[in-house]
């Protein structure tokens, strides 16, 4: 089989909002009135500790029952949820802040069948980022499942700490540090 050469990445540049915000993809994966709704917000920071005002964060997650809205997740015993795509995006504002309204995902299996702790996949784009960088966000109220999560247990404790959001006045706070002290752990996926 011939493998076609991939199309290379280029930076999103500073004007990504023109093309990527305001369309069918929103920062609300569920309506705010959903009793299960949680709010996740954070600040995207550069290597000088300054906020990144021209970035965009994307999240990908399973539904509350732990099923992905994708044909590769064919576990029929877990319900799909009509209208829940599992995907959202939020541009950063002038203060580098992004925010999502979503539900906490259920647990999904790891490659060896063990269950992962609830988590979101997170993609980061910005002027000055040549390609998307990818990380994961975990939940602070999941101490027991986090302690057995196959990804978290494979990391050093300082790396692990960058991936767990913190509770912040009824919401979740997840800052993303692109470079320097406290850099978020990024994954090659």
């Amino acid at each position, binding site marked *: 089989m011939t493998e*076609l*050469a*991939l*199309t*290379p*990445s*280029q*930076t*999103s*540049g500073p*004007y*990504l909002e*023109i*093309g*990527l915000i305001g369309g*069918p*993809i929103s920062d609300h994966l569920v309506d705010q009135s959903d009793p299960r709704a949680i709010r996740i917000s954070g600040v995207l920071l550069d*290597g000088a500790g300054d906020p990144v005002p*021209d970035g965009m964060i*994307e999240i*990908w997650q399973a539904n509350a029952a732990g099923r*992905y*809205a*994708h044909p*590769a997740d064919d576990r029929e015993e877990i319900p799909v949820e009509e209208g829940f*795509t*599992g*995907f959202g995006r939020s541009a950063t504002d002038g203060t580098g802040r992004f925010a999502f309204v979503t539900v906490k995902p259920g647990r*999904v*299996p*790891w*490659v*060896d069948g063990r269950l*992962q702790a609830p*988590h979101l*996949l997170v*993609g980061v*784009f*910005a002027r*000055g*980022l*040549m*390609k*998307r*960088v*990818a990380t994961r966000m975990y939940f602070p109220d999941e101490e027991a499942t986090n302690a057995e999560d*196959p990804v978290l*247990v*494979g*990391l050093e*404790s300082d790396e692990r700490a960058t991936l767990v959001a913190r509770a912040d006045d009824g919401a979740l706070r997840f800052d993303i540090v*692109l*470079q320097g002290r406290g*850099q*978020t*752990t*990024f*994954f*090659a*996926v």
Partner: protein
Amino acid sequence: MQPETTFARIPDAALTETDPPLLHPDYVGTRLRAPKEPLVLLPSSLSELTGPVFGNGPLRETDADLTRQHAGEPLGERIVVTGRVLGSDGKPLDGQLVEIWQANAAGRYRHAVDTHDAPLDPNFAGWGRCLTDDDGTYRFTTVLPGAYPWGNHPNAWRPKHIHFSLFGRAFPERLVTQMYFPGDPLFPFDPIFNSIRDERARQRLVSRFELELTQSDWALGFRFDIVLGGREATPLEEPHDD
């Protein structure tokens, strides 16, 4: 606490066969934004084997025609930009959301941050969206974007380009890139284009002019095919059965 298992760490510089390195100092914006810690190489679990599916999202016909989104027509050379979105196995990817954004014919973006002294066009917003058809084909009608100056270094100008956003079949295949136009005299001077080290890879971002796509008395035609796949080619950990 010591890690129970460990994942391979790969420096970003090892992943630049196709993509640019995160840190490319000629492009000043990378200096404070490029992550410097090695990347943690994760095997693909169900989380990475899945990704957003758009099916027949709520798009309008004019979403793919950037010249018909306003009361009047935008100024500039009308063009058709089309191509196929393919997996690295050559399979056409249907139902893929393709999003684009670009400067107007004068080289100005409709964005508060763009202060280039060139006119805005009241009939051009500069965004487009469409879904690929069964053959993986997308198609936009727009105007040729202008080149524009930027503050990266003295007398810095970006080659004419259109930004593209694509999803692929799963999270790792997500791609944001830029499509260029053939023969642009600014190529040798652009640190973003030249951040891609391999000349053949750079050329994959340059669209082709095609007379067959060109519509008589109407619009020039450019072809830009896009190939999506996992950005990390080597699977490093096999699933095990214990």
